[in-house]
């Protein structure tokens, strides 16, 4: 049994590395052979995960740790690369393997396989990390390699990872504080309840805040929705522009050709939005980003740090606010998109915000429900994105099934929404305080008011999500023509159908069990911590998924509205556009984020840099020279060497210094 487990673990960690090595043969071996090898490697990892799951380790540990290589070891600082296998590592590795198999089935010819394999290696390192060092290596490596997938050959760097560096820096700060206060170790095992309980609350909040900033950058949540600079965009006129996640993922221009507004804007050369669909990232790459490398990795970090989040209520509140805002914004953006991948990308990022809300509520059960719902959805999003680029004609049945599942939100979103509603209801349960002074009525606390807003955001976003998904589907059906650039799509279709059915079956089974895949160690620690340190309001029980089902009607209402507007011969879209045009355009382009970042970050940094250069050349350099000349002119010829800075001055001062030193030593001796 031990030999088998060792073999499986070797396969789990080694397969991505082997695949990466093989990818260097790109150009020497045929593309098909390389893709097959990569798929075999992904399948091997999947098999090893399943094998490890069904061959439990000896003993009763909730996790198993294997140390393979020492990357860096110093006294008090040890980064060992290895594999720490627990429930969540299994789930994440499985998800990544499935998504990789999907994307490899339709990997575009023009995108390098090497970066994908390197990114996979990084993601695997991060997923099975047993210490913060390995986690950081994998985290950074996967972000960098994945972002390279967006860069076209011989084009400038498309620095998706520039914003990732912001999150990297925040993470490094957080890891530094953890290392300093957990016995100089980076191991996860150091986070015992006792050690966490001994920390000052502000320290825990600081760590949690740093980690959340890292997650916000990784998951493109607001306000770090900006991922990179591009030459496009309105600030490009000055050579500096910032672009946002949706731009990088799917391009900026999203009004169909032939549309009056589109033609008018295209004719205007000073207009900032000239991007076309051709510039967008291939939807297969998009699938890798959204469903394996970026969003699930950020969520995974949240789960890893859950024991610390459990005792950081202020940071959790911030997570809820960020998540709700992002959810609402992305849902609105999705509703204004016409391109199917764009809709899905906005949807995915919005759902990531949903997870932030779930984790921010501070209850382990809701948090994991939100996470698991997100992970199930990720596979479906990958299926749809791959289908977008690999199937000659959109498969109606496939899309309907997937859309229905996503609109229904599985069990997780309902449960989270229910829990948020429970929190918000406290607003009305708090007795109204009537004071005799000028402010007579105080209704609830800031926190309860926030929860009410979150409930509103969730309801609205659910309606908009239903509307957006079905609107995009109806529009794509209307314009759909069989693609001639694809050969037989039967194998891909089979893979997609199988995956969809597996996901449906798994999610239904999971829903029936009513609980998330447990990382028991994390769960135990978290529950213990909550019981000991959290206010009781955050300790809600697992909600009954059937109790609150008002999200489903909202989503269905959105779908019906979309059907009425886009599938029936109706004048409603025109009327709606006329009435809501400014809002729609605002939602569609989101140029205000570009404006904001340009105004707050890019422009000031550029101006300061250029001003400093000017200052250094004109003021500092010339100033020093003029001071020397002034001194020389005041003191006459005797100081002339000073203005030239001659060797004579150096020699005289040196001799003087030696004399002073000698005198000092003589004085000391006396």
């Amino acid at each position, binding site marked *: 049994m031990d030999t088998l487990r060792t073999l499986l673990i070797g396969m789990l960690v080694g397969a991505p590395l082997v695949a990466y090595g093989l990818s260097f043969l790109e150009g020497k071996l045929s593309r098909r052979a390389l893709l097959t090898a990569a798929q075999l490697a992904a399948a091997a990892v999947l098999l090893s995960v399943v094998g490890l799951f069904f061959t439990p380790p000896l003993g009763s540990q909730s996790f198993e740790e294997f140390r393979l290589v020492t*990357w*860096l070891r110093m006294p008090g600082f040890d980064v060992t690369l290895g594999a720490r296998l627990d429930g969540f590592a299994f789930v994440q590795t499985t998800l990544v393997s499935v998504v990789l198999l999907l994307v490899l089935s339709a990997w575009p010819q023009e995108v390098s396989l090497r970066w994908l394999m390197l990114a996979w290696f990084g993601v695997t390192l991060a997923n099975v990390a047993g210490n913060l060092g390995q986690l950081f290596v994998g985290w950074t490596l996967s972000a960098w390699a994945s972002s390279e997938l967006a860069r076209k050959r*011989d084009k400038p*760097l498309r620095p998706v990872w*520039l914003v990732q560096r912001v999150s990297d820096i925040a993470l490094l700060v957080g890891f530094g504080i953890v290392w300093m206060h957990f016995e100089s170790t980076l191991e996860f095992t150091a986070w015992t309840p006792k050690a966490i309980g001994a920390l000052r609350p502000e320290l825990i909040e600081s760590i949690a805040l740093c980690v959340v900033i890292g997650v916000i950058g990784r998951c493109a949540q607001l306000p770090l929705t900006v991922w990179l600079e591009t030459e496009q965009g309105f600030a490009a006129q000055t050579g*500096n522009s910032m672009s946002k996640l949706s731009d990088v993922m799917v391009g900026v221009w999203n009004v169909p050709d032939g549309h009056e507004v589109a033609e008018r804007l295209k004719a205007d050369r000073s207009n900032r939005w000239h991007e076309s669909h051709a510039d967008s990232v291939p939807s297969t790459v998009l699938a890798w980003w959204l469903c394996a490398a970026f969003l699930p990795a950020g969520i995974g970090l949240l789960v890893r740090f859950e024991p610390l989040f459990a005792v950081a209520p202020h940071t959790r509140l911030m997570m809820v606010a960020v998540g709700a805002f992002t959810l609402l914004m992305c849902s609105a953006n999705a509703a204004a998109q016409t391109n199917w991948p764009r809709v899905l990308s906005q949807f995915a990022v919005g759902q990531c915000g949903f997870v932030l809300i779930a984790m921010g509520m501070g209850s382990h059960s809701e948090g994991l429900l939100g996470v698991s719902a997100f992970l199930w959805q990720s596979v479906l999003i990958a299926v749809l994105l791959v289908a977008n680029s690999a199937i000659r004609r959109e498969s109606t049945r496939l899309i309907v099934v997937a859309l229905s599942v996503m609109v229904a939100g599985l069990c997780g979103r309902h449960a989270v929404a229910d829990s948020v509603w429970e929190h918000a209801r406290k607003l009305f349960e708090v007795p109204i305080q009537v004071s005799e002074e000028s402010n007579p009525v105080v209704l609830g606390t800031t926190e309860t008011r926030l929860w009410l807003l979150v409930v509103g955001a969730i309801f609205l976003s659910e309606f908009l999500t239903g509307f957006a998904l079905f609107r995009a589907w109806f529009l794509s059906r209307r314009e759909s023509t069989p693609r001639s650039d694809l050969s037989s799509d039967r194998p891909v279709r089979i893979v997609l159908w199988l995956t969809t059915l597996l996901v449906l079956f798994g999610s239904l089974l999971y829903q029936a069990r009513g609980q998330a895949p447990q990382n028991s160690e994390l769960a135990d620690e978290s529950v213990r911590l909550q019981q000991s340190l959290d206010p009781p309001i955050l300790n809600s029980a697992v909600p009954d998924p059937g109790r609150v089902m008002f999200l489903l009607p909202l989503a269905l209402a959105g779908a019906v509205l979309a059907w009425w507007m886009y599938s029936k011969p109706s004048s409603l879209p025109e009327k709606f556009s006329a009435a809501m045009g400014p809002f729609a355009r605002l939602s569609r382009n989101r140029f205000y984020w570009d404006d904001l970042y340009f105004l707050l970050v890019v422009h000031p940094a550029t101006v300061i840099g250029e001003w*400093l*250069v000017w200052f250094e050349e004109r003021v500092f350099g010339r100033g020093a020279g003029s001071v020397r000349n002034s001194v020389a002119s005041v003191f006459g010829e005797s100081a002339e060497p000073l203005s030239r800075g001659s060797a004579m001055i150096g020699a005289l001062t040196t001799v003087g210094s030696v004399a002073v030193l000698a005198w000092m030593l003589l004085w*000391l001796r006396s």
Partner: protein
Amino acid sequence: MWDALIRPIREHLPLWLMLLPVFSAVLVGFARLAGAAAVRRTLLVNLILSVAFSVWLVAAYEPLKPASSQEHAVLLGPLERFQFRDSFAWVGETRSALLERFNRRGERRVIEVPAQWGPNIRFAVGVDGISVWFVALSVLLVSVGSSVCESLRPNAESRMPMAVLSTPSVAWLWLQASLVGTFVALDVVLFVACWMSTLLAIAWLVGSGGDSQRHEVVPRLLKASWWGGWLVALGLGGLVLAFGWMRTSPNPAMSSLIFSVPELIAGIGQLSVGGENAYLWRSINVWLFWLLVVGFTWPLGLAPLHRPFVDAFVSAPRGVALVLAGVLLKVGVYGWLRFVVPAFPDLLHQHADTFTTLVGLSSLFAAALAFGERDWQRRIALATSSSVGLSLIGVMTQTNEGLTGGLLRVLSHGLTAGLLVWLLPRAGVGSLFQTAADDDRCFADEFGSLKRTPDPVTSRRHRLVRVAFFAWIGLPGLSGFVAEFVTPFGLFQHDFNAAALSLMTSGLIAWMWVRADREPLDWSQELWTRRDTFVVATLVTLNVALGVAPQFVVNRLQPSLMSLLPMQPVPSEVR
């Protein structure tokens, strides 16, 4: 037989590395009589042997030599931390004299009496875990830099007179010998002499091969470096005198002046702990501390004192700029590690907050200047200034992680800056000899593999420049990542402000390179030779090796760095 041949080299590798260029310079003098081909062959032999010896030195260096017995373990003193030691009397000598005595009963006794002639300045060399990496980096970059030297080109003789041809060659050899000597010197006077000599050599190289601004730039560079050197000389002289007096106070019979660096540093640490010596030390150590701090920091080219370095970098020929930024600028960091940190731990600890904040601000300032620059050469120079500042911050923290991160950043920056400088188009980096060679297309055919730059080569250069960017920015798998990852852990232990400044600087530099990548570089006039392939492959491989397996370097660094930490003995597991 084989052992008899190898042992004399293996046991004295630092000495060989230092003397090899000196011998080569002499041989070049003779080879001039035989023609350019002989000069070229001499230089090539020196280059190959130097690189081979430096690799051998790194491989043969044992992280901490185990003591052969318990008795030796007890005796393991400061000098024993250095390996491959050689020591020769230079100015003055101390030796034991045997005196024959007869007692009343007529029995003969031989007494050993120490006798001294002169100040006992010795030509002493050796390496520890810190200097071995500086030596390796120096040899590598000087070899790379000198490989663009005109004398190494075939048929160079027909382009210019022999006198002109061999002059830079001798300067390069001089630079190599003095640079290696700076890092292997175990004697204070030898260290200062080598450092000063290095400055003269680099001034000669910039002055003879730089662009039209070189006549203004060289004096400024010399002044800035020279001032630092003189202050260091004063500080070290004071250190020697002070130590001598502190030793003689309780025991006048002892020798007064010690110039050996390890003994000096270790002795000061022991003698200044308490008693009358502590009083003496407290009276003078502040002066010496500031002399050394200013002396070692000034030539680092930190903003706002960066102008001499930046101007010299821009004006210098490509090979010289590469050495200047890659290793020569960092002698100050080495000085901090060798003298300031071990000799003045308390004072450094007292002022560390101020120092780290100031240097952090300086690095941020240099990064902001680089951000606003449009000129590639100035951009690299300013980013170098910023990077050196970040290395120094790590050293100033007096923590294991900070010191290790600082050293790793020095190595990483040397490799990365070397790669970047090598790959940039030469247009605008004026060099008398380079221009003559590159513009003269009639020699192109005689290079064999030399060919005009086609598009694939430009594309390759683009990709390689990006590798340099990635390494500088600190992406995993490349050398910069290790330093970027380790240093903050030391900074956080020390001061949050310094850590924040350091991270902000790193972020700004990353952004700067991303913006720089959009500016097209014109390689249309560039040629791609086998030499380019060899140099670039070496630098990229070393970059990746340091990123993937930093433990090889850290293993050799650690024992020496641990000895710099205040009041912390080397843990048993490291021994």
